[in-house]
């Protein structure tokens, strides 16, 4: 009985220690990669290629989902607001939900699925096929040459993607609310401008997506770098990237919201 209990405690302890150890390795990895930024900033070409891979190629899914999320918000918001005779507030509802929450969060989740998983698989395969070790043999630091431009590209791309998502959502909501359902065009924009604050809402939304960009790209790159060098290891690492970064985004979103919007 006591032995079984102690065994359980031991397993829990082992799990806790390994989780902490991974976190520590991840942090060291992150700090080291950040140290490569000054060097990589002088070689803009590397960053441009990565912005293409993680940002520009994610545009299609961001554009499509932005428009559709905005249209659904317009439809659902209208159906709810019209019961209270407040359908003029539709613009306010659509813009605030997009700029504060849906823009940064949904973009980060889509980014984790579209670009994060690709980053993990790419880095994981580089490690498995010992390309990273080969670089070290040639005295090229893979963390600075391969990882740093990808992290920087993710940090640059995410706020841009979130902004594109939000503005397209606002126009999607405008299309459904104003063009299809007949909400007054002037009321849609003026209610929006009267309530959305540049500093409180827009800037905080950008800060959120900036933080998500760091966290998701960091998790994706670290999972790839830390993968077990087998095909099964890569598959597990890719799954962990999507699951962990989605959970991190949702958890962080709560913390950031509590810090930013507590009135």
């Amino acid at each position, binding site marked *: 009985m006591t032995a079984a209990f102690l065994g359980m405690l031991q397993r829990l302890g082992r799990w806790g220690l390994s989780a902490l150890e991974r976190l520590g390795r991840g942090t060291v990895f992150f700090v080291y990669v950040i140290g490569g930024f000054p060097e990589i900033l002088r070689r803009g070409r590397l960053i441009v290629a990565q912005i*293409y891979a993680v940002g*520009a190629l994610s545009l299609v899914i961001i554009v499509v989902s932005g428009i559709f999320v905005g249209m659904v918000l317009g439809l659902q918001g209208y159906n709810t607001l019209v019961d209270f005779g407040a359908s003029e507030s539709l613009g306010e509802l659509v813009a605030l939900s997009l700029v504060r929450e849906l823009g940064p969060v949904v973009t980060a989740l889509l980014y984790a699925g579209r670009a994060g998983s690709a980053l993990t698989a790419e880095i994981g395969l580089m490690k498995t096929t010992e390309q990273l070790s080969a670089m070290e043999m040639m005295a090229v630091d893979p963390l600075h040459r391969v990882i740093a431009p990808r992290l920087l590209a993710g940090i640059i791309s995410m706020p*841009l993607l979130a902004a594109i998502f939000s503005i397209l959502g606002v126009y999607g909501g405008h299309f459904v609310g104003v063009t299809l359902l007949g909400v007054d065009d002037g009321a849609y924009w003026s209610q*929006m401008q009267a309530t959305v604050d540049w500093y409180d809402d827009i800037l905080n939304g950008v800060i959120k997506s900036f933080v998500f960009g760091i966290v998701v790209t960091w998790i994706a790159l670290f999972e790839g770098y830390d993968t077990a060098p087998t095909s099964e290891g890569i598959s597990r690492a890719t799954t962990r990237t999507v699951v962990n970064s989605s959970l991190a985004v949702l958890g962080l979103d709560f913390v950031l919201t509590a810090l930013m919007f507590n009135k």
Partner: protein
Amino acid sequence: MTESRTLEIVVGGFIFAGLLALLMLSMKVSNLTDIGGTDGYEIKAKFDNIGGLKVRSPVKMAGVKIGQVSAIDFDPTSYRAEVTLKIDRRYDKIPTDTSAKIFTAGLLGEQYISLEAGGDDHYLKPGGEITLVSNAVVLEQVIGQFLYNKAAGNDKK
């Protein structure tokens, strides 16, 4: 060569679209264009009750927005709310006997301050105070008063 050129063009287009989206969010969706009108002058008004008035609530004259509420403070000596109104520089001819009322846009809409011009030849200077005020209409009070009057009316009969 051409491949890296198309790649750079696509990235340029992406960054441009992203910055454009940020700019549009700032200009079209938020109130950044309002903040641009910061050169104005401030006048004060004291109310017994400001209801749901907030900082940045509009100040209107004849229904046209001429400024906004820039600060709300509580005056501990008179137990009244001291509201600072920032009026656009263009509207500098507001008579000293102008009255300020707190209205609600629609039944449940946001509250705003409505100014009604008086007939005085003297105009309010920056830092001046509007003395003719009427307070926010608190819906509960109106309903309570209505019920009270109704009951009193029934007693008389």
